[in-house]
C-alpha cells in the first residue's frame, strides 16, 4: 500500500526544487537561444556566484574583521552586478573571438573556462563541502505532515519573479526585443540595425545575472563544492531540453519535472538520485531533443 501522504513530501519539494532548477536553466537557455552556444561553464559560473555569497556571508567577518556578515539574499545586491559584468566581459573578450576561430572553438573555450573556475574555487575554498547558513536556513513551514523549508519557497518565488521579469523584458524593451529578434533570425536583425555584438554581450550578461540569483538559492538549499558545477550544468541542460528552447514558461516546467525526478529518486538513495537524473537527460536527448514545448 502506497501511503499517499508520504508521497506528498517529495511531490511538493520536487515542485519547489523545480524553481531552483528553472533558475539555473534560464541562464543557459537565454545564451543558447540567442547565440546557439551551450555554455558548458554555466554550472560552474552558478557555483561561483554561490561562493561569492559564501564569502560575503562568512568571509567578511572572519577575514576582514568587519562587524557584520551579509545575508546571502542581501548580498545579491553586490553579486548580481558583479556577475553581470563578468558575463559581459566573458562574451565580449573571449567568446566573441572564439566564434571567429572555428565552430568548435567556443565549446572548447567554455570547457577551459569551466575548469579555470573550478580550480580557482578549489584554491580559495578547498574541496570541503559548504553551505550558506543564514539564521533562517533551517526554518520550515509546517502544513499537516509536511515540512516545507522556507528556502525552497524563496527559490520558487524567485524563479516565478524572474520568469516574469525576463518575459516582460524580452517583449517590451527595445534591447529585449533585439535579443529576441537576434535569436529568431540573426541576419534580419542585423539588417534592422541591431548591433548583434552588443546583443550577445548583454544576453550573456543577463544570463549571468540570473545565474547569480540561482547561485544564492542553490547555496541555501544544497551544499556545494567546486566540482558540483558539472552536475548542475547537466541538470540545467535537462531543464532546457525538456522545457524546450525559447520558452521561459517551458523552462519552469522543465525545472519542475527535473525537480520531481530528483525528489522521487531521492527516495531510493542519493546515488540513485543523480543516476536517475542523468538517465532522464540522456533519454530526453535521445528521444526528443527539441523538448516538449520547444520551437
Amino acid at each position, binding site marked *: 500500500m502506497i501511503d499517499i501522504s508520504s508521497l506528498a513530501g517529495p511531490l511538493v519539494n520536487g515542485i519547489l526544487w523545480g524553481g531552483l532548477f528553472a533558475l539555473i536553466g534560464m541562464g543557459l537557455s537565454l545564451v543558447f537561444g540567442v547565440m546557439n552556444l551551450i555554455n558548458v561553464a554555466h554550472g560552474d559560473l552558478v557555483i561561483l556566484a554561490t561562493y561569492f555569497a559564501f564569502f560575503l556571508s562568512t568571509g567578511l567577518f572572519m577575514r576582514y574583521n568587519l562587524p557584520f556578515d551579509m545575508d546571502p539574499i542581501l548580498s545579491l545586491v553586490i553579486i548580481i552586478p558583479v556577475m553581470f559584468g563578468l558575463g559581459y566581459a566573458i562574451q565580449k573578450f573571449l567568446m566573441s573571438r572564439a566564434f571567429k576561430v572555428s565552430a568548435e572553438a567556443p565549446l572548447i573555450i567554455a570547457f577551459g573556462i569551466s575548469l579555470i573556475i573550478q580550480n580557482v574555487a578549489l584554491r580559495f575554498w578547498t574541496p570541503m563541502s559548504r553551505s550558506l547558513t543564514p539564521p533562517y536556513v533551517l526554518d520550515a513551514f509546517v502544513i499537516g505532515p509536511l515540512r516545507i523549508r522556507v528556502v525552497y519557497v524563496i527559490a520558487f518565488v524567485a524563479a516565478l519573479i524572474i520568469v516574469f521579469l525576463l518575459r516582460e523584458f524580452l517583449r517590451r524593451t527595445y534591447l529585449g*526585443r533585439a535579443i529576441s529578434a537576434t535569436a*529568431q*533570425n540573426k541576419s534580419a*536583425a542585423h*539588417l*534592422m*540595425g*541591431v548591433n548583434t555584438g552588443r546583443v550577445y554581450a548583454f544576453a550573456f550578461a543577463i544570463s549571468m545575472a540570473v545565474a547569480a540569483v540561482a547561485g544564492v538559492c542553490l547555496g541555501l538549499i544544497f551544499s556545494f563544492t567546486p566540482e558540483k558545477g558539472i552536475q548542475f550544468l547537466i541538470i540545467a541542460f535537462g531543464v532546457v531540453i525538456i522545457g524546450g528552447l*525559447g520558452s521561459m514558461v517551458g523552462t519552469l516546467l522543465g525545472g519542475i519535472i527535473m525537480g520531481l525526478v530528483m525528489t522521487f529518486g531521492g527516495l531510493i538513495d542519493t546515488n540513485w538520485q543523480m543516476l536517475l537524473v542523468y538517465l532522464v537527460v540522456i533519454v530526453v536527448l535521445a528521444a526528443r531533443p527539441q523538448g516538449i514545448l520547444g520551437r
Partner: protein
Amino acid sequence: MLTISLLWTNMEKRAQEISQEPLLKISNIDVFQGTFQALWDVSLEVKAGEIVGLIGANTSGKSTLLDTISGLLHPAKGKIEFDGQDISTMEPFHIVELGITQVPEGRGIFPDMSVLDNLILGSYSKRARSRKKENLENVYQHFPILETRKKQMAKTLSGGEQQMLVLGRGLMADPKLMLLDEMSLGLAPIIITSLYKALQEIRERGITILFVEQNVRRSLQEADRAYILEVGRVTLSGTAEELREEEEVKKAYFGV
C-alpha cells in the same frame, strides 16, 4: 514652423535632383564569399528619388551585392559611398543608422513575434525611433491589412502578407534608401502587382529604391533604370526604355 521645415525639405530634394550627385555610388568593387569571388569590378549608381532594378539569375551575385551595401559583407577592393560618406567598411547597424535598410530575400520575418512587434523592431535604430508613430501610421496606410493583423504572430501570415510586413518593417527604419531582395519570390502575380504599386507610393514619399528581381519584364516595367548582373559582373545598364531595345534583353524578355 511647419511650413518652413516643409519648404526646407522640398528645397533639399530639389537640390539633390539638381546636383546629380548619386545617393549611392559603388565603384569597382570585388567581393569574396570565403575564397570564392562573387563580384568582379562592379560599379553602380543610384540617384535620389530613383527606382533602380538589379536584374539577374540566381547565381549572378545580386544578393551578395545587396549584402555588401548593407555591410554584412565588405568589398575586398573598391569603394561604396552613400550620401557622400564612404561606407565600405562600416558595420551593418551603423549603415542602418545612416539610412539604408534592406528587405532581405525569403522575407526575414521574426516568426514568433507579433506583426506589431516586428514593425516596432524596424524602428530600432536611433534615427528611426523618434519617428516611430508617424512611420507606423504610414505603414498602415500603405498596407491596411497589417493593422488588422497587428496582434497575430508573424508566422501565421500568408506569403504576400509577410512580404508586406517586411516592407513595412523596412519603412519603419525611416530609410533614405531601401534595398529589396527578390520581393516577388513565390507570390501570385496579383499580389506582386499590388506590392509594386505600394513601392511606387513609397517612392512618392521621397524614398529611393534599389530592387533585385529575376523577372526581366517586371523589372523593366517598374524601374526607372536597371543594371544586368551576370556571374558577378555588370554586363548591361541603362534606362528601362534603352534596355528594352537591347537584343540580349529582348531574348530574356520573351523568355528563352
